[in-house]
């Protein structure tokens, strides 16, 4: 069914994966439970979900404590690529892995679009995990 939220979420992920230099994407609940992912086999989606949720929550609290306002995103730079996480509505976060050569402007726009879509899908339905 086109209405099925998990189908719609997978569609959002698939579209994001088509953006050049995006290596993998994960949607997690804010308490670390995996919702959906489009990751290569070498990456453990459950671990990413748990760690990213922890980092996002701590980043939000840190930003609040330091008077930096609302969290936009968290980014880790590595020598191979970047990992980014951002809130996708009240209940979820989106984690994206990109290569260092990526066009960050395009990536950020695509992530933003995906985050809005995910937030909508989750808000309009209750997703059973």
């Amino acid at each position, binding site marked *: 069914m086109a209405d099925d939220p998990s189908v719609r979420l997978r569609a959002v992920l698939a579209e994001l994966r088509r953006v050049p230099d995006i290596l993998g994407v994960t949607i997690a609940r804010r308490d670390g439970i995996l919702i959906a992912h489009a990751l290569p086999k070498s990456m453990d989606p459950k*671990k990413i979900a*748990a*760690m990213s949720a*922890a980092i996002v929550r701590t980043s939000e609290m840190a930003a609040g404590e330091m008077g930096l306002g609302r969290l936009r995103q968290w980014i880790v730079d590595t020598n191979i690529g970047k990992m980014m996480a951002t809130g996708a509505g009240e209940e979820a976060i989106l984690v994206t892995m990109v290569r260092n050569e990526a066009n960050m402007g395009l990536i950020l726009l695509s992530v933003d679009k995906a985050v809005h879509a995910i937030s909508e899908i989750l808000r309009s339905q209750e997703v059973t995990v």
Partner: protein
Amino acid sequence: MPSTKEGLQRLLDFFVYGMLRASEMLGNAPLFLRTIEEEGLRKFLTTNMPRFQAPDDPAEACRQYMQAGDEGGLFDSSDSVFRGDGDSVHAEIGDKCVYRRVCTMRHDEGLPVHCIRAFALAEMLRIRLDADFDWKLERFGRPCRITLTRAKWK
């Protein structure tokens, strides 16, 4: 509440085991364990040992702290020995350590043993003496050997 001492010990064992695994999996065990200990110990000292004044000598402070804990029925440190020289503490912790079973589980699994006794004492020294000590488990065994060394940061 568990109705037997064994029941309570078991509860403690698995709770602590979970805490250790979780803090490792999230990537900063020293931070999480130290923070848990700091928060818990601060509350404990305020509530249960408000009159505990640690002497300046760290080994003596550890000895007196453990004794106060014994008197409160929390520990049995009768088989622990503390020696020191003002800048370091060397301790032997015997079988009766309340964490021995958790540490044995960890050790048998090949996981690093985070000595809770050691970092609890380090936090106690930090809270009561405003002193920075680095802890090290020199040997897990019967007895365990731990050292606390005054840190170089200040």
